[in-house]
């Protein structure tokens, strides 16, 4: 039974602090490869940079289950050198432009520090302050002579830390999933073939998962990700009917998002597993968003798929926040469900 202790928290810290913007996942890939070395029967890096690891079970009649966790995070790419260490940039993935001004960033493989500034308030008009600052008027500033070049990626610079029962850092979406998948691979149950895909380019179109699912050709797929928790008070003090998930209620199981209608057989299997093990879970509110499951279930002639996510607040910003207990319970639920996974789960028709 895998557990989350200091070693796992240290790993999460390294993963969160690593920079791996979609299309340039090398830094996280390196950590993953080192962590899973010798823990799988087969490990390879594919044409897009996905890490695919296969851990075969030992029992008879095993299902081939693909677990996918995306390694990439949202961020920036420098696209033009304005001189004096100042660079124009483009946003990669969905980041609310209002999250950008006044932030520290890390640029390139060497994590060169930089900032995204804003016009001094003194020079702005009241009217101007009512409008969002457009991205194309913002720059990344490394200081005069700062070393970088167009094509370099950049991320928010927030260092990972623990605060009481919570975890705070950048890119918890989806380093929580990556860390979870590493633990599952290390503790793979013997009744399944575990096909682990640490995927790339999820944030810009589920590209890694698409080719990974084609290559692995699994019997079923589970995306392990982080999902927003909008469980803050609403402006009018009324109870809000739209919150997606809530911190502290356990792993979030998907029924429907914009990319996938989860296979009901798998949702039932997960809820049954949670109830049997006395683990908490919550149904993520059906609605928008999407995970790697969106690509997995459409692979080849179709793959039953579902998503399990760790709830976290303030996704795709400089500082997101999750509860340690939710992460622990997500890992526990996935592991216990996998140990209960038999061909009977998929025996009937969807």
């Amino acid at each position, binding site marked *: 039974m895998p557990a989350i202790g200091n070693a796992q928290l240290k790993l999460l810290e390294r993963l969160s602090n690593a920079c791996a913007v*979609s*299309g*340039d996942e*090398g*830094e996280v*890939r*390196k950590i993953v490869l080192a962590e899973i070395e010798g823990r799988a029967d087969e490990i390879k*890096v*594919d*044409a*897009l*940079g*996905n890490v695919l690891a296969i851990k075969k079970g030992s029992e008879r009649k095993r299902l081939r289950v693909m677990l996918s966790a995306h390694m990439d995070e949202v961020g920036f*790419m420098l*696209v*033009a050198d304005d001189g004096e260490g100042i660079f*124009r940039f*483009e*946003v*990669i*993935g969905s980041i609310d432009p209002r999250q950008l001004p006044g932030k520290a960033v890390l640029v390139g493989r060497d994590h060169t520090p930089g900032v995204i500034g804003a016009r001094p308030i003194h020079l702005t008009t009241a009217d101007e302050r009512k409008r969002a600052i457009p991205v194309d008027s913002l720059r990344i500033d490394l200081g005069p002579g700062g070393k970088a070049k*167009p*094509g370099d990626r950049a991320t928010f610079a927030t260092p990972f830390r623990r605060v009481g029962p919570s975890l705070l850092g950048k890119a918890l979406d989806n380093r929580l999933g990556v860390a979870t998948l590493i633990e599952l691979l290390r503790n793979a149950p013997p009744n399944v073939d575990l096909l682990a895909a640490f995927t790339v*380019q999820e944030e*810009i*179109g589920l*590209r890694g998962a*698409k*080719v990974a699912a*084609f*290559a692995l050709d699994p019997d079923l797929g589970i995306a392990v990700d982080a999902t927003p928790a909008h469980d803050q008070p609403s402006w009018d003090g009324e109870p809000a009917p739209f919150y997606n998930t809530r911190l502290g209620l356990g792993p979030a199981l998907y029924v429907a998002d914009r990319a996938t209608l989860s296979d009901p057989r798998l949702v039932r299997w997960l809820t049954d597993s949670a109830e049997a093990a006395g683990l908490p879970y919550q149904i993520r509110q059906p609605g928008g968003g999407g995970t790697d499951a969106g690509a997995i279930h459409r692979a080849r002639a179709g793959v039953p798929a579902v998503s399990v996510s760790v709830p976290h607040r303030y996704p795709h910003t400089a500082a997101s926040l999750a509860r340690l207990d939710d992460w622990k319970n997500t890992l526990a639920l996935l592991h216990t469900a996998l140990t209960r996974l038999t061909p009977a789960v998929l025996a009937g028709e969807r």
Partner: protein
Amino acid sequence: MPELIPFLKDLLSAPGLSIHEGPVAELIRTRWAPLVDEISLSRLGSLHARRKGSAAEPRPSILIATHMDAIGLMVTRIEDGFLHLAQVGGVDARVLPGQLVTVHGRQDLPGVVIQPSPRLLPPGFEENPVPLEHLLVDTGLLPRRVNELVRVGDLVSFAQPPLELAGETIAGHTLDNRASVAALTVCLETLQNRPHAWDVWAVATVAEEVGLIGAYTSTFQLRPTLVIVLDVTFAKGPGANEWNTFPLGKGPTLVMGANMHPALHKALKDLADKLEIPYAVEYAPTHSGTDASATQVTAEGIPSAVIGIPLRYMHTPVEVVAVKDIRRAGRLLAEFIAGLTPDFMDKITWDD
């Protein structure tokens, strides 16, 4: 070697809107057939031409994708002899009024896109651009004759003939992406005198403008080891001087970003440096906006690269391209192919 410019002009004049590429495919087939070992059409009409390499079987292969489809218009409805229109591919309705077109009815008919008088339009169009739903084609024929010759779903293509402008530049419609087809032709011609180890699939894809359909399907069928996509990109010019535009006539672009394999991109850059072929690096952080978005994610994933040919006024009937850039792109491609060693894939890794 037949002349490039007359061939390019033929390419521009050949009809071939998305999914209806038959005529232009035939023109390209005629030109490529003597340059390759085998040539055929895919089930959707993409042209697949193979030059066999000299390496031992199983030989690696490189697929060069150039889409051959054109954007244009389609008849949605006929009203009193006037034709209502929908777009095929992305057309800016603001360039349409006064445009000469060919209506591909039971026979080809000349026509002109007309902007009805503001008095015939809902309020607000005295000065504002008139959207496609209100533009019409007038063929000059009487309604009865139009009803005989034209049906709902008939295609309408731009009739602007190609022009040679100063400085060895060409203007015309559909230079996106027939300019790249011409560059690939240059590449195939250059390879006549150059041995190469890898198989080369020269592919003219269908229906890029409406969803990269040829790229998805041809890549799936041929399963190449590598893909290079050749497409046009934005040239600097009036109204376009941003970071994502590149000088006309100063060489092709080599595109880097999430759709492109970094090692393949670097190999092309190194080669261009070595050959002293001028180029610019183009940054496409998320989407390349080309067939590479499809080729990269086909099957288990295929390392892809993109070479861009700078072009002004994209998706208008007067796109402008420098012939020099076409030749450079073709030469770079040929040299790259000739330099592919049997073990080249050992270099296409993720060196983190």
